[in-house]
């Protein structure tokens, strides 16, 4: 028996080895494809020399001109501030609103629980449409304001459901004993349950942060005429779409390659700057996010 098992092991390990190498190569390709582009644009953003068609691993003609140009532009700095503001204020406000809603929906004794759940969840499956929502928002005078970034996003129903599910998994005794001790509903929710929900709440706040940071469509539709509310993402987008128009008009022939290089490096510097908050937040995402998604995937 032992001999058979040993020969089996030897056979296994040859096939195994082959498979492992195959797997390793595939993983390597995936990692290169997903990661190298970022390395390239970091290098490009710090290059001033001739980079035409080269695969970069280090800056050519190291310069920080692109970044300095960004920092000197008051428009870009202002846009950055607007982005930061909406990405911090938005998630906090949304969290408060949906946490309260999640708590109420988790209470089995709440008299309208079933109807309210259906009322809220149904909205995940349809949308009024671009124009009707635009009309509602302009009727509320939210166009051309900062609040258009916050208020319509307050009811993040999918995240509400995640919190509700999480609360329902917590032991009932906590709520019950607090209730017996005379705590009111909002005290139970915020003093007792809120701290216990830290994992799912962290995941949701991070998710909301990234969603707010990356958004530019709302600026496009509601605030395009109001530069004081332009976000950094929107400014970068404008830069890019403009480039597209220029290249169609043989912009390349009109300008020296040097000048084009500096426009390119400003664009790259902006791209890197706009990724930086994501990079900062990413390790935290890793910790809480994967757990949160696993919960959502299994329960949902």
């Amino acid at each position, binding site marked *: 028996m032992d001999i058979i098992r040993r020969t089996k092991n030897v056979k296994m390990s040859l096939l195994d080895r082959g498979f492992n190498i195959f797997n390793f190569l595939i993983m390597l390709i995936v990692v290169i494809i997903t990661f190298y582009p970022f390395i390239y644009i970091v290098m490009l953003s710090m290059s001033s020399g001739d980079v035409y068609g080269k695969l970069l691993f280090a800056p050519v003609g190291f310069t920080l001109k692109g970044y300095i140009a960004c920092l000197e532009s008051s428009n870009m700095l202002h846009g950055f501030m607007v982005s930061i503001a909406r990405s911090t204020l938005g998630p906090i406000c949304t969290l408060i609103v949906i946490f309260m809603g999640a708590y109420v929906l988790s209470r089995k004794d709440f008299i309208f629980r079933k109807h309210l759940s259906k009322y809220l969840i149904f909205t995940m499956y349809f949308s009024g449409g671009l124009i009707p929502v635009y009309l509602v*928002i302009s009727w509320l005078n939210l166009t051309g304001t900062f609040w258009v970034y916050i208020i319509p996003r307050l009811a993040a129903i999918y995240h509400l459901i995640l919190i509700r599910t999480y609360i329902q998994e917590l032991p009932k005794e906590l709520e019950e004993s607090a209730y017996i001790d005379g705590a009111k509903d909002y005290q139970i929710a915020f003093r007792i349950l809120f701290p216990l929900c830290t994992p799912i709440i962290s995941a949701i706040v991070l998710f909301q942060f990234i969603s707010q940071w990356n958004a530019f469509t709302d600026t496009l539709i509601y605030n395009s005429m109001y530069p004081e509310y332009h976000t950094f993402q929107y400014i970068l987008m404008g830069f890019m779409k403009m480039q597209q128009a220029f290249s169609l008009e043989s912009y390349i022939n009109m300008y020296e390659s040097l000048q084009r290089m500096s426009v390119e490096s400003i664009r790259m510097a902006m791209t890197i700057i706009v990724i930086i908050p994501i990079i900062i937040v990413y390790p935290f995402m890793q910790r809480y996010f994967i757990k949160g998604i696993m919960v959502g995937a299994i329960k949902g």
Partner: protein
Amino acid sequence: MEERIIMNTIANKSKIHKRFETGSNMKKIIYKQRYLFMMVLPVVIIVTIFSYVPVFGWLIAFKDYRPGRDILSADWIGLKQFKMFFLDSKDALYIFRNTLSINILCLIFNLTFACMFAILVNEIKSNKIKSIIQTFSLFPFFISWVVVYSIYTVFFSVNSGVINIFLINIGVIKEGINLLGDPKYAWGLMVITALWKSMGYNAIIFLASISGIEQEQYEAAEIDGAGRWGRMWYITLPGLKSTFIVLLILTSGSLLSTDFDKYYLFTNPTNIEKMEVFDMYTYRYGMKLANFSYSTAVSMMKTIISIGMLLGVNTLSKKVTERSLF
């Protein structure tokens, strides 16, 4: 006989009593749960204003409404906009074709690749390497489409994209492949960008399912002599089947919807015939051409058809696999 009459009368009386009691009981319960009502009020208000109220705006689709004018005073034109979309212009055909083709292709490729990737990642023995791979493959999911577009122009632009110049230099192609502009690459480009951005993320869902498969199954298979491939084929894959189907159903309701951010950036005048999808069409006629009435009609159609598709797939799934959403 008499007993039954007596019993019935008693039962009816208590029913009447219950109704009275429910009346005052309701008020008592509402008062007792007043904090709950207050806490859930914000969500309900926001959802009502921004998700339900706009549906009243569908009225515009039936009227000759211009921006700035009053809705109620506009002329009624009935189904004229719908006729225009489906019959008079050829637009409905190519919009449906583009949207469905891209979405179905993306769905198939996304799920398949994510599934395969998850299975392969699962086979990696070292946990450290596993998490490094996940870290890198998951990163593109969190960046904005603006950044994605920025990167793609750098790599794939016709005249100056790195990949194009590189391929020209080594003699593989003569001139740059216009990936970003040429309509014939439009659908492929959308699938590639979707994969690049979301494969890592989609794989997590499959990985979660894999971790739910009982170890005993694997051990039993190993005793029965199944090798690496055998175990993957007969245990891991079937274990993922239900996840695959659930994801398929969940996505079926949104086969006409697309990521506005992504398409706004990648759609341009050169590739528009293959690239323009429902949401972009709605945007073009609504915001750019200010034809509110037509745009509303089109998006209304899209929503109704989407809900129909969702219900249809749900019913189908109930009949075939006994598994459904509602």
